[in-house]
């Protein structure tokens, strides 16, 4: 039985269809990265999975529980790390954890708190109020809070959005630790690197649907090929290069100030100018090709 099974899920907010016929299976024990641009429906999907949003159509099963009827049972077995920090800032670090240990019906609250403090590396800050913590510490605490009951499934909604690169790396090692312990993880993100570093499988989501799914290397091989050539030049020169490459049937995408010729290994003579920088094709190429949006 997969950890998560969604079939034909639709969620509308008035005129807007946030989730539009979503099918998603997450097998147990993997980390699935739900990769999509802002507004793709990732956060709504997360809220549907906790029963904080009710689907208009489709069927949802989480850890064998039918949603929304058994949402509470499902929540008892999963942990959630929200996109926005919602810790109690006036309350001590340990009390923030203790409250959630109780909400998750943990028998030995003290032991769970100690475990959480250790995981978040905040044992020496246990009596400090959250207000006194740095941004990175708060994020680690938020993650530990969702793990009080040692759940089988973790939902991470944009876990590192708006964080410094250094703090992001810290958090990635924590997620990696969970992954190595066999916890099933569904992580939404719009950071390509995050998906590439952490996810066993990536599902690319846009306009409320999954449009591609697979291991990062599979997705790259299938949608982008082996190699991408990036060309930095004045706009007039870029237009020339683009025309030549497209005449050969190659896909060209914008890449900030440059253009990227995807699948450049298939180009014949002259299509790739000598000043081009050739690099291995990446998940970013796939993302931009499939969603039509520039990556962050």
């Amino acid at each position, binding site marked *: 039985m997969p950890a998560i099974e969604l079939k034909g899920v639709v*969620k509308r*907010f008035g005129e807007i269809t946030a989730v539009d016929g979503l099918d998603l299976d997450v097998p147990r024990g993997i980390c699935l990265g739900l990769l999509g641009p802002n507004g793709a429906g990732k956060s*709504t999907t997360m*809220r549907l999975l*906790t*029963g*904080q*949003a*009710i689907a208009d159509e489709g069927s949802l099963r989480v850890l064998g529980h039918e949603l929304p009827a058994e*949402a*509470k*049972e499902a*929540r*008892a077995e999963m942990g*959630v790390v*929200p996109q*926005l920090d*919602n*810790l*109690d*800032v*006036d*309350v*001590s670090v340990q*009390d*923030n954890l*203790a*409250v*959630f240990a*109780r*909400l*998750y*019906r943990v028998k030995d609250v003290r032991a769970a708190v100690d475990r959480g403090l250790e995981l978040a590396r905040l044992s020496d800050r246990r009596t400090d*109020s959250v207000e006194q913590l740095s941004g990175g510490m708060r994020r680690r605490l938020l993650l530990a809070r*969702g793990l009080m009951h040692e759940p089988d499934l973790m939902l991470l909604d944009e876990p590192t959005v708006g964080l410094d690169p250094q703090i992001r790396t810290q958090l990635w090692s924590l997620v990696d630790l969970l992954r190595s312990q066999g916890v099933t993880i569904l992580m939404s993100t719009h950071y390509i690197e995050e998906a590439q570093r952490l996810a066993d499988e990536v599902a690319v989501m846009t306009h409320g649907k999954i449009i591609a799914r697979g291991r990062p290397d599979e997705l790259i091989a299938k949608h982008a090929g082996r190699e991408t050539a990036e060309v930095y030049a004045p706009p007039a020169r870029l237009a020339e290069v683009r025309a030549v490459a497209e005449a050969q049937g190659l896909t060209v995408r914008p890449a900030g100030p440059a253009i990227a010729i995807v699948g450049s290994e298939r180009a014949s003579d002259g299509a790739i100018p000598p000043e081009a920088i050739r690099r291995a094709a990446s998940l970013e190429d796939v993302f931009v090709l499939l969603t039509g949006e520039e990556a962050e």
Partner: protein
Amino acid sequence: MRRLEPAAIAGVMSREVANFRSYWKSTTFSSVLEPVIYLLAFGLGLGSTIVDKVEGLDYVEFVGTGMVATAVIFSSALPAMFGAFVKERFQRTYDAILAAPVDVEELVTAEMLWIGLRSGIYGSFPLIVSMLFGLDPAPGMLLVPLFAFITALGFAGFGIATAASVAKIDQFSYVTTLVITPLFLVAGTFFPIDQLPEGFQVAAQFNPLHQLVVLVRHACFGFEATDLLRVGGLIVFTVVLWREAVRRMSKRLID
């Protein structure tokens, strides 16, 4: 899982207790000092110069017992309104709690119970203060925290339902001006309502605060048979607002 699980309710209340540790001093300070100020101003000021006896009571006793209702509404409706809105909108606390195995009904019930308990205790302070001003202790007074608790539960429900209904926090001004201030003024705290025009007197019978004021005075000076009806009325008020708070919060919190 069952509805209204005690463990879920206790968990949510434990969060309130943890937060209370950071602000109990200021709340307690104002809860104790406020009745003192009112009693000095109204009881001694008005009582010694203009008003002699009201309904057979010294004015200090009249105001002191009536102040329980004032303390109750200001320690229940207002904290519930602002607290629920801030936790729902600004701090996203409710989102955090609902990601755990807690549903909206349990969340709202726990929030109401916490405010009810707190207000039941703070609401009794004016009575204790009044004793320093000469109110004689009576066994019936032991029931005052219970009456205060029941009424506060209802007003907590009112506050939470209101918080779930307004779009912006400044809309609470309408609610305080149009609902809370009139309820507080025509409760019979500072003057007996039988001095009001007949229409107001009838309306006052539907004011839960007025019923609380009467119950507290009777607790101090002797119960009457109709007091059971008053308690029944308060329970109905509380149950209706509890369901309304759950309904409106569900609508607000679940997409």
